[in-house]
């Protein structure tokens, strides 16, 4: 019943473009699936700082002695360092995060100051100072033709077109999808301006590993070039601005403390010149407030009068510590376990 097919394809066999299109579609879908799953995994990987040197393939002897024993090659770093974000790939992925994931991710990424309770050594040589604008602290991310600002809790403040690289869908922008920026900003309501206080990524380049000195230099030279500091236009909804930064010598301190700025001041920020950008609270950034440089140092009533009593909101932290709900919090006591049990 079987017969041997004599005919063979003659001259050029018809090009099966349809099959080709199917295959290209499948490849694209597989790639997108990998990206989506990879992105989901990145949320987790940012919690860990993996030390590549410890994963030399020569010693893959990951072995479980007993169920409670730690895996020796793996070191989980302390809470502070866990939030470190060093991997350029992760940052790029983060710039594309959406929805809940983006909230969760960005909530952990800002570098937060400690109160200045004493004068650091070498203040005059190793530190910068600037007057902090009053307003909403946020991360501004430009990528893929749009710009999004996210508050400290990760929730979205604005979505808008901007002149930042990849910040708007304009024909003149020639940045590829790789290009994105993450800026540490304060949104100042009265003049609707984003004051950029630090630069985390610029045009696809991660600045996490760079010193403050370099980041500020880059910030001051790059931001203006893009036109982000220009007045708002249809492709640029909010103005961006740098803040004047001074060395911590007497002259600089004086300028920051008393010098005129176009924004409402909220204390002074001191930044160590050699610090890398690091998520969470760090002693390498310090904040100082007093009545001369911040309107928020003491509560006032609606007429600007200082009331008789100052109110303090306290928070009971999970470990029994009591803290003020200041930013940053001040821990001033600890409840014992029995008391917590009773409560």
């Amino acid at each position, binding site marked *: 019943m079987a017969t041997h097919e004599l005919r063979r394809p003659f001259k050029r066999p018809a090009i099966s473009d349809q099959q080709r299109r*199917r295959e290209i579609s499948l490849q694209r879908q597989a790639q997108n699936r990998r990206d989506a*799953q990879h992105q989901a995994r990145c949320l987790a*990987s940012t919690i860990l700082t993996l030390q590549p040197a410890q*994963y030399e*393939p020569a010693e893959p002897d*990951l072995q479980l002695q007993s169920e409670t024993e730690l895996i020796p090659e793996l070191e989980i770093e302390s809470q502070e360092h866990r939030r470190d974000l060093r991997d350029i790939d992760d940052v790029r992925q983060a710039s594309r995060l959406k929805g809940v994931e983006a909230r969760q991710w960005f909530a952990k990424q800002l570098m937060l100051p400690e109160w200045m309770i004493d004068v650091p050594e070498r203040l005059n040589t190793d530190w910068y100072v600037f007057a902090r604008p009053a307003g909403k602290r946020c991360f501004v991310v430009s990528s893929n033709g749009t710009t999004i600002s996210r508050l400290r809790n990760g929730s979205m403040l604005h979505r808008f077109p901007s002149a930042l690289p990849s910040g708007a869908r304009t024909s003149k922008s020639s940045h590829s999808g790789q290009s994105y920026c993450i800026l540490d900003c304060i949104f100042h309501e009265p003049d609707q301006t984003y004051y950029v206080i630090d630069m985390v990524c610029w045009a696809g380049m991660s600045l996490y590993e760079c010193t403050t000195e370099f980041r500020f230099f880059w910030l001051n030279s790059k931001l203006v070039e893009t036109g982000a500091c220009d007045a708002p236009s249809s492709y640029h909804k909010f103005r961006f601005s740098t803040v004047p930064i001074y060395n911590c010598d007497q002259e600089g301190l004086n300028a920051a403390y008393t010098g005129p700025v176009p924004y409402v001041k909220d204390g002074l920020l001191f930044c160590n010149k050699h610090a890398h950008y690091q998520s969470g609270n760090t002693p390498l950034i310090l904040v100082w407030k007093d009545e001369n440089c911040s309107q928020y140092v003491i509560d006032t009533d609606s007429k600007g009068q200082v009331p008789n009593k100052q109110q303090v909101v306290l928070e009971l932290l999970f470990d029994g510590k009591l803290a003020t709900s200041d930013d940053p919090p001040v821990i001033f006591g600890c409840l014992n376990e029995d008391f917590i049990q009773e409560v």
Partner: protein
Amino acid sequence: MALEITQYLLAAQSPDAKIRTEAESALGQFRDQNLPGFLLSLSVELSNDGKPTESRRLAGIVLKNSLDAKEAARKENLIQQWVSIDISIKSQIKSFLLNTLGSSVSEACHTAAQVIAKIASIEIPRKEWPELIGLLLANMTQPDRPASLKQATLETLGYVCEEISHHDLVQDEVNAILTAVVQGMNVSEANPEVRLAATRALFNALDFAQTNFENEMERNYIMKVICDAALAKETEIRQAAFECLVSIASTYYEVLEPYMLRIFELTSNAVKGDEEAVALQAVEFWSSICDEEMELQDYEVPESGDSSASHSRFIEKALPTLVPMLLETLLKQDEDQDQDDGTWNLAMAGGTCLCLVARTVGDAVVPLVMPFVEANISKTEWRAREAATYAFGSILEGPSTEKLSPMVNAGLDFLLSAMKDANGHVKDTTAWTLSRIFELLHSPATGFSVITPANLQRILGILLDSIKDAPHVAEKVCGAIYYIAQGYEDAGTSSSLLTPFLRDIITNLIATADRTDSSDSKLRSSAYETLNEVVRCSNLAETSQMIVELLPVMMSKLEQTSNLQIVSSDDREKQGDLQASLCGVLQVIIQKLSSADETKPIILQAADQIMVLFLNVFACRSSTVHEEAMLAIGALAYATGLEFGKYMQEFYKYLEMGLQNFEEYQVCAISVGVVGDICRALDDKVLPYCDGIMTLLLKDLSSGELHRSVKPPIFSCFGDIALAIGEHFEKYISYALPMMQSASEVCAQMDDNDEEMVEYGNQLRRSIFEAYSGILQGFKNSRADLMLPHAPHLLQFIELVANDRHRDESVTKAAVAVLGDLADALGSNIKTMFKDRAFFTELLGECLQSDDEQLKETATWTQGMLGRAFSVYG
């Protein structure tokens, strides 16, 4: 209990649809109510010489279709039905069938032979018809049996041998069958009909004769009889004998050496002087040898220099005489072979064989062919010019670039001029040769091309002139342009060389697609497919404006298709074909423009209109969805992201239709892929549609009808859905997880000797892991606990895969990733499950040493996740 069903069988072939349907339903009823009686009645009908040929023929066909089907599940079902029929009824049916072999009506004999073979294929492996072979052989050996019975018996033996394995019989029976067949083929057989039947039976029995071919004496005898039959007086016997040789060329290549001299002589004489039907088989013998040797070369170890022992290098040895023989055939063209798709003649077979010879031996063919090319290419007779051009074109694949490039560089200009030849065949073959030159010798990305900045303009000028030539020539010209464009893809700065010509090329391709002088749609498809390649391969930065302008042109063409007048089903098919081409072009444009930030807004702005067009294409059909439109919608969903949500309500019903299309499984597979695109575009906004989609996907998975290749993508799609909707996937867990678990058990039991099954198994494994990954990641933040009961099963499956020696890299990647996802989602809960398992240490170790950076990265991540899970107490 047999019933008289002649009238029904005749009525079932009536031209009157009403009568036909009634008869069919009556027969169907009989079958459903009493299958044994129905089959018996059919066999009675078939065996009765007093009945009309028409009713006997249909009885035989229905009987055969009650025993065998193409589709595996249905076939198994039919076999079970037959096996369970009462043995006495089966004996009666078989005996009627055997009696039919002696009928004087040859068509009835022929049908009975086929039905007997089908029953044999069921019963002989089960040892339920031990007397069959003896009865058939008796027909051959008893002296008083008529020639027609011998003929029918030989035919039956051939079919039976084709259906069963020689292991199903004892060797004595195998030998006896072959002896009977070979004796029938012998010169001493006086009756030519019997000799022909025997030769055809041997053709069907060649696989079955494996043990006999292993024995040198028996093999020598069989080969001698075949070669003798190749010289028989009757054309049909010679043709059948050559068919045996063709089959032996691939089945028994390794033992052919001693017979090759004789076979060469036979084939050579047949090609030179025999009837075309015989000559074609003779050429096919050499093509088959080329196929075998190319396959052996594919598996060759390149460094050792020494190929596998079984490579006999027949083509290389025969080359000095084989090539001239094939070149001669090239001159035997038919006057109208370019117009008629059905033509297959000696010139075409010889030319095809020459292409295969060139691929088999490479450089050595060149000096044997070039003198022929030079001697004939300028002759006044068109056959000489066409043959010379074809010969040149046929050796472009195989020989090295170094060998070919001086000749091609020298000949290119001549070929370009030949596009103006007075003869259509010459132009057709010249265009084909040019397209092969550009396919094989134009690769600027790797540094070699016959096309230079100096000759590009002339080449394109001539091609764009010739694209206006006869449809068959224009089609080949499209091919030439296709490969020129392809060569410039990703070719760095030389990519820009084509840019100045693109506007002209695009205009000409659209005009070609619009031509109405072609009898079929082949030219139009070629033109659009070439347009796709041109768009796909172009340097977007330089060509975006052109492609942006092309978009509305293609959109309006697609819009016009819904105004086509549709009267017949033929019109509907033509409309569908045109829509397919246009959706294809739009898909390519969408993908190209959305690949860059600068041009993506163009697609976003046009998305509403494009979507309306695609929905109109869907609306042109009632029962199926248009595959190409579905494919294009996937690209649009990817490009538009969240915005795609507004189309969902309209589009959803077509998506449902696509997911239910079992018959055209490609449509189903593409629809599944589009679900993934939509999940990634809409994220949790896809939720309202998920109940419907999941129901259909689960149905698809449990269907025995749906082609198995669609099943892995469905599992991957579960992962896409879970990742998009997160915790909302909870309600599907109790349906999806059992499916994933049983599929993973199927993986464990797969036959790992079957290459195709190994490949399928890998796909299935990867997709099951992708499903788990998506679900685990989706649940991670809120409902990870739901996966806790399923974790041991997953872990066991990962272990099974880790220990599988056939696992490919992509499966490893997915396995390692899902291991990390498990640790990430479930944290310290997994500690006890890992207690007695050491496999993952080895798996991670293997991955960390891999050269694949991506795999290493994933493994490092997984190691981190595991470390974190183990470090937490509790």
